[in-house]
């Protein structure tokens, strides 16, 4: 099969022991162990990173761009996720952590937090303009957008069809820098500093984007590592740093929803992929139509829970909240930015489904398949032990019907047979 989907999650074959831990936690059943090694179904993977956190052998890891890749651009810009603010110990203040990025070679640094307030306004307008679609689903978490594409495609029209804040900033700065510095688009490198594999994938294979202004995605871990070596220089630098504490909390589940809620917009915030799946089932049954806006994050507690962060998600959110309380509030206002929004520059194309749910092309043939699956399932022990390499007995039955496994793969049945 042609590999048409980019994934930030990569398998390190030599580390894989075939233990099936990852197979059991994958929310889209994208992983199998076959011949003692893990395999990833590119069509199903949503880059949520659950397998990466679960694997004790580092056989699944996230690949992102490295810092060297910024060198090929004349002007280098970093756009940092709001989680960045929660990563550093409290003796390093946020402006210093931001200054360190200049020491690493970036010519300018902007934070996602800069536009969240303006985004809130745009989102509220969108919600009020789309009264016939309820609830509107935030497009903030790329793993959730992909989850909806593969498992809940009937909800695709509910997704907010505006780019997420970091992509919006990329579009804005690419345009602005080219204009002001008189540079061509390929001379300006816009790099996202991201907390999770889903965001790496979103940079390299964005969904529904008209124009991708993002040139790479570097993990917060890599930046942290390198920034720590530049802290001395950063703390001595007197470079003016703008921070927008008001938007910093967007990395924490609940904040975005609270901000959008102006008293007339009813919101719901959900985090953790398993919670999200339950909510999406309810939404699909129209049991949540009384909500106007739903924000879902694949990671527990929001983006602070992303696997490419350094700090524990709860400590990171505590630090960010502290920063919010102590820093002076500041607004970003730019007419040019709002004009770009009005001109539709931040719009997203209607998202396409990538359904993995259908057993076959027609209902008739799918029924035959389901019958076969039921028959095979009855023979299987129902222990869901995953020793066969499939996540559950039912999925093994499905794999057998699809010709991707045989009943001999069931270790429990094999043992019973040997006993006889």
């Amino acid at each position: 099969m042609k590999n048409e989907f980019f994934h930030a999650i990569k398998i390190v074959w030599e580390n894989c022991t075939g233990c099936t831990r990852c197979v059991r936690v994958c929310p889209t059943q994208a992983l199998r162990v076959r011949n003692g090694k893990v395999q990833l179904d590119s069509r199903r993977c949503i880059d949520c990173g659950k397998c990466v956190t679960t694997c004790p052998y580092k056989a699944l890891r996230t690949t992102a761009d490295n810092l060297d890749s910024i060198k090929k651009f004349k002007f280098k810009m970093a756009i940092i996720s709001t989680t960045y603010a929660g990563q550093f110990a409290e003796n390093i203040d946020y402006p210093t952590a931001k200054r360190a990025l200049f020491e690493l070679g970036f010519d300018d640094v902007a934070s996602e937090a800069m536009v969240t307030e303006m985004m809130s306004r745009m989102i509220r307008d969108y919600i009020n303009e789309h009264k016939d679609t309820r609830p509107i689903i935030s497009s903030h978490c790329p793993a959730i957008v992909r989850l909806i594409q593969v498992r809940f495609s009937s909800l695709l029209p509910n997704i907010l069809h505006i780019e997420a804040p970091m992509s919006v900033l990329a579009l804005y700065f690419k345009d602005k820098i080219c204009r002001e510095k008189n540079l061509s688009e390929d001379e300006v490198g816009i790099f996202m500093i991201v907390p999770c594999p889903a965001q790496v994938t979103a940079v390299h294979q964005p969904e529904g984007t008209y124009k991708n202004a993002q040139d790479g995605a570097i993990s917060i871990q890599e930046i942290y590592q390198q920034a720590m070596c530049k802290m001395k220089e950063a703390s001595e630098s007197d470079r003016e740093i703008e921070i927008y504490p008001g938007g910093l909390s967007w990395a924490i589940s609940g904040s975005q929803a609270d901000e959008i809620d102006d008293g007339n917009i009813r919101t719901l915030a959900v985090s953790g992929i398993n919670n999200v799946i339950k909510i999406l089932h309810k939404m699909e049954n129209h049991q949540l139509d009384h909500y106007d806006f739903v924000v879902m994050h694949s990671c527990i507690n929001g983006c602070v829970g992303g696997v490419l962060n350094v700090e524990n998600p709860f400590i990171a959110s505590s630090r960010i909240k502290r920063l919010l309380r102590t820093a002076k509030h500041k607004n970003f206002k730019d007419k040019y930015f709002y004009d770009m929004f009005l001109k539709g520059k931040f719009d997203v194309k209607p998202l396409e489904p990538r359904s993995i749910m259908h057993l076959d092309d027609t209902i008739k043939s799918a029924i035959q398949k389901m019958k076969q699956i039921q028959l095979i399932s009855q023979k299987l022990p129902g222990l869901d032990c995953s020793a066969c390499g499939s996540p559950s007995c039912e999925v093994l039955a499905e794999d057998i019907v699809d010709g991707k496994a045989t009943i001999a793969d069931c270790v429990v049945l094999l043992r019973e047979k040997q006993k006889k």
Partner: protein
Amino acid sequence: MPVCEAVKFSMPEYWYIREGYEERTNSFFDKKPEPELIKEYSLGEHDFVNAGNASGDIKLSLKRLGVAPEVLRRVAIAAYEAEINMTAHAKGGDISGNIYAELIHIEFLDHGPGMKDIEQAMIPGYSTATELVREMGFGAGLGLPNIKKNADVLHIESEEGGQTFVEILIYFE
């Protein structure tokens, strides 16, 4: 209108068939073909925690078969309401989801105590729900009207003191 057992024994019953589906429906009940797949569930009295699981599972099966989202939604709502009715108003019962290539036929047979007046129960807002049920947030009197709105066929047989039998048909196309 199809002739069924209930008429012979003059058990009170209610029929609703969406306009345009009369012929297909009559032929279905005349032939009563064997379903391709059967999904069976049973539900206890006031088991509000598990009420919704059967309709959720039926919906998931249909989704895997490739049934259109709009149809899925109607099946989910109609089956969910009937399931809740069984929990809230009856002493539990059995559910059977009979899947065919072109339709789903879902049967709900409860353990009583039956309905006094079916026609009245079809009026939106009419409810016989007990205090307990209302406290749980159910019993607004919209269950049966909501099933009717979403199903292509709704058939109810019930008698005070006896069991209630509800069946719905939803065509995939």
